[in-house]
């Protein structure tokens, strides 16, 4: 299955999501410190990055722009997660490949991930 980098500063959400996605056969690397995202993505070369919109002092916009600038991560599929109500259009403009609004169910997360990872 797919190698997924899951970045979110809500430790409980990270744990439950990792359990869910691992249970579906994915290999999940979870981060609660968003500052490690770029370095981990370069090293790990994941099939998908699941990224929260607001991350301890950073926003997804900062992280995605950096990733798109680097050849190694420019084409990395990104699923953005947001608890804000006005970020769907901003996510599209940011060239995110998928968007999931909080709160979401296990089925919602599974479907969004399945749509973006290689079969």
């Amino acid at each position, binding site marked *: 299955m797919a190698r997924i980098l899951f970045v979110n500063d809500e430790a409980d959400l990270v744990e439950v*999501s990792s359990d869910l996605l691992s249970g579906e056969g994915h290999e999940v690397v979870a981060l609660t410190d968003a500052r490690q995202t770029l370095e981990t993505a370069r090293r790990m070369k994941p099939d998908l990055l699941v990224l929260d919109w607001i991350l301890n002092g950073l926003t997804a916009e900062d992280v995605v722009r950096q990733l798109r600038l680097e050849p190694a991560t420019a084409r990395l599929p990104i699923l953005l997660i947001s608890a804000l*109500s006005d970020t769907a259009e901003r996510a599209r403009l940011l060239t995110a490949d998928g968007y999931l609004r909080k709160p979401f169910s296990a089925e919602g997360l599974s479907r969004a991930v399945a749509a973006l990872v290689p079969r």
Partner: protein
Amino acid sequence: MEGQEDLGAARKLAALIDCERDEIERRWLARVRADVARAPGIELTQLRAGMHEYLAGLAALLLGPRAAFERDAREVWAKVAREHGIARVRIGFDIGQLVHEFVVLRQVIRAVALDAGIAVDGPESILADILDAAIAAAVQAYVDARDHETKRRQAEYVAFLTHELRNPLGTAMLTASLLRRHVPQEKGTLEKLERSHQRLSEMIDGVLLTEKLGAGTVESRPTNVDLGKILDDAVEVARCAAERKGVAFRMARVAGLCVHVDPLLTRTAIQHLAENAVRYAEKRGIDVAVETRLDDVVIHVRNDCPALTDDEVRTLFEPFERTPTPQAGAGLGLVVARRAIEAQGGSIQAAQAGTSGCHFWITLPRRVVASHPH
């Protein structure tokens, strides 16, 4: 004769104000700083902002004919006063401080004029007229700006709070739905938990949208859209809810009716009306119909709920007003519906329909804007 004397005095005063602008500003600033602006954080430049231009405008008005003052004081000088009022909101003045600034200005001008041997007092003096008009304009602008700022801050706070609430709720919802997979024997219990989470989530969204619409931070973006398509999307959830409840949901198909509205706001409003109608419907169910008029389009939503009192009808669109029944929602759906329609220039009304049942109707302007090829 008296009028000519007045004009002569006004011209002398104008010349004096023009010459002594620096002195008037210096004395005014010293008094204002001592009386009303002792709070730390207020910069001298913020206090002084616009005062020099203010005095120049005052001198120019005093030099002109009285008729010109009557016109200009309202149109030009009042604009300066309004900007002054808005600027004072930004640095945290209250209304008393704002009015006191003008009183001080009047006293300082009077003192400078007396030093120069010019009489400026008397209820009929032009100076008094001008300053009274300026106070009124500044206070009105201050009140408007303060109200707007209060609503904006409240909406900002609610946006922050709802974001913070959605995070733990998100984890709770995800955990419950995952448990439903792992513990199938508890499916019924966990579905109840998920429904409660869903309701909380809808309530959070409702509060946020109500506040944003109330603060005017949601912009209406009208476009030419097919009303039939909006209606079909908007009633989808209500139709399913009616089916679960075992009541009929009737809506005549609307084809080829193009309207110029904000699709998201219109869909939101119809959705809330339809869901509200299903919540309280009894045996006869719900009817949704569209009526086209020359200039308007009217969307009617009717149900056969138990009779409402006049008071209940009057407060239907007020926040957190709900009939004391087990079906009652959060009390925000109709508020959101009203604000979503009013934000785009439409109206929404409700009335008791006969001895039982309720009739809601949304009226939207029917205009369609011609699209231009790019």
